[in-house]
């Protein structure tokens, strides 16, 4: 009886496929947990959604779409152009400096609610000063690699 149990527990791992051994276990655990969550959490939640007591996250929520998607677009453009401009001036960090200025300016304007003259002046000054300062301290003083 005991030896049967021991042989059940014994395991040999083939080195060639050992990189898949642990991920496979994790997949099974994930699948099991997901099933449990679907039954105990998601199903009652969906019932509540149907009754109109709850709303589906993300899809059913109110959101400032302009600022949310604006942020995403700006970040993607920021990352993309940083590399492009950085390749034109390699090892100088100018890509970071120039694109950051544009990014900080646009993102500040995106989030600015009251477009007064004073607020815009602050935004513009900040967009020039903050990236320059970061570039100077990090790239020049600390010689950190920047795009």
């Amino acid at each position, binding site marked *: 009886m005991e030896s049967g149990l021991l042989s059940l527990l014994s395991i040999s791992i083939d080195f060639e496929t*050992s990189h898949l051994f642990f*991920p496979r276990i994790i997949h099974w655990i994930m699948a099991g947990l997901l099933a449990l969550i679907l039954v105990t959490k998601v199903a009652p939640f969906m019932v509540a959604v149907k009754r109109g007591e709850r709303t589906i996250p993300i899809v059913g929520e109110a959101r400032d779409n302009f600022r*949310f998607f604006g942020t995403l677009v700006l970040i993607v453009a920021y990352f993309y152009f940083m590399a492009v401009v950085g390749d034109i001036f390699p090892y100088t960090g100018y890509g970071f400096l120039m694109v950051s200025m544009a990014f900080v300016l646009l993102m500040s304007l995106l989030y600015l609610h009251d477009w007064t003259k004073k607020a815009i002046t602050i935004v513009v000054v900040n967009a020039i000063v903050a990236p320059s300062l970061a570039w100077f301290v990090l790239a020049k003083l600390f010689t950190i690699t920047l795009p």
Partner: protein
Amino acid sequence: MDFLFLLDITFFLLAGLGALIGIIFGAIPGMTATMAVAVCLPLTYALGLHHGLALLLGLYVGGISGGMVPAVLLNIPGTPSSITTTFDGYPMAQKGEGEKALKICVVASVVGGLISAAVLFLFAPLLADFSIKFSYVEKFLIILLALSVIASLSSSMLIGIFSGVIGIWLSLIGDYSISDGGNGKTRLMFDFMEPYLFEGFSLLPVLIGIFGISTILLEAEKGAKSGLVNERIKISRGGGFSLSVFNGRLTNLVRSSFIGTFVGMLPGVGGSAASVLAYTQEKNLTRDSSQMGKGAPQGLIASESANNALTGGALIPLLSLGIPGDSTTAVLIGAFTLQGIQVGPLFIPENTETWYVMMTALVFANIVMFFLMFYAIKYIAKVVMVPKHILFPIIVMMCVVGAYAINYGIMFDVWTLLIFGILGYLVQKIGLEVAPLIIGFILGSQAEIYFVKSLESFGTYSIFFTRSPIAVVLWGLIVASVMFAIVMGFKSRARQKMELTQVTGSTPTASGKGHDTN
């Protein structure tokens, strides 16, 4: 005492500067200590290990402390851990006792911070000494225990475990590293990803993305309103603070500090758990709790000493076992790796000087935090007004620097920011938990090695139960933490049912508010 030669004026300046920046971050609602550490990491790339640690520990202490400012003045917890500070702080501020409330918080904070530093100093080397004898089997079980504790203290154990497992899964992407005894083959990805992901996702871009970018996305979704324009900050009418407030409150102070330290030691448990626990204990144990929630200093003392005591507590498992106690110490792991230091049982014996330097930085940061906040609180209180349209772009910019420079200029690390920023956003939106996910991500690849290597050398699953008495004890603890979660789950469900039957209308209670936050 050799380490004294390592301490120069720059060291103390950096620790002080860290505390100041941390306080500012903590004081701005929505910005946390974790974010402060993550965003300022690039500054440490050029600093040496000891200077870098001084800055980071300063940020950590300052960040946790700063949360009290908006909690008291605006009824908004600046960091999750100051949630219970709002219960008594805001009523005091409304009575015109804002400065008094803040000063009580500052004193409680520094006591909590120093008590936990003392516990760290005494306890971490002992734990490290003990765990040095652990084999792969015990190390795997320790990780399993860490994950089960995180999960059992999450608002729902099932969700906590699931979040942790997702973190593990993410950490397995990449190759099964040859340097760790693996076969060097990649898994969990398509062939075209191999050039980017051969070594998996880098830890720091992942952390900065999850804590930096996703916070920005969550705020952007709400329109990034400053929302404070119409609020007037009521700070003080003539102070009125004296140390006599603490008369008869020493037990509370010390008890809350120890609660904070202990909760900090539990991996992945956020600061809100510490302060909520200390607050409820004070409410249960004190003779006169009728004023709590209406502006009683004792509530502030409990809350703030507990949340600052987290700092020392969370460093204990980090430095002795290599397991981060909270999300901020998870980022600190990244900083250590960056400096080529592996945290774990061997850290303290092999890096005695660094250990003493860290302790000095921690204590000094607490003291600087005290003086900064005690004497300059009026000016610091103004930073809660920094407009978000100025702050957020700068934060994104610093995140980029941190991610790009970490591996000396890899653009994919910057994209990792965005990937994990969006992932972090989705995770929080659909109700999964970030802390277990991050701890799972950090420990996942080690867990794999310990698990697979144990099985390869012993050839049977039973080794995890029979290797040593310690293994059996660890299993006992794992079972206990799971049982604890199940019992607590039943209790809270029973209470909810009771509340539902009692209250037909919907009047949310303060206790309910405390429980769903972490």
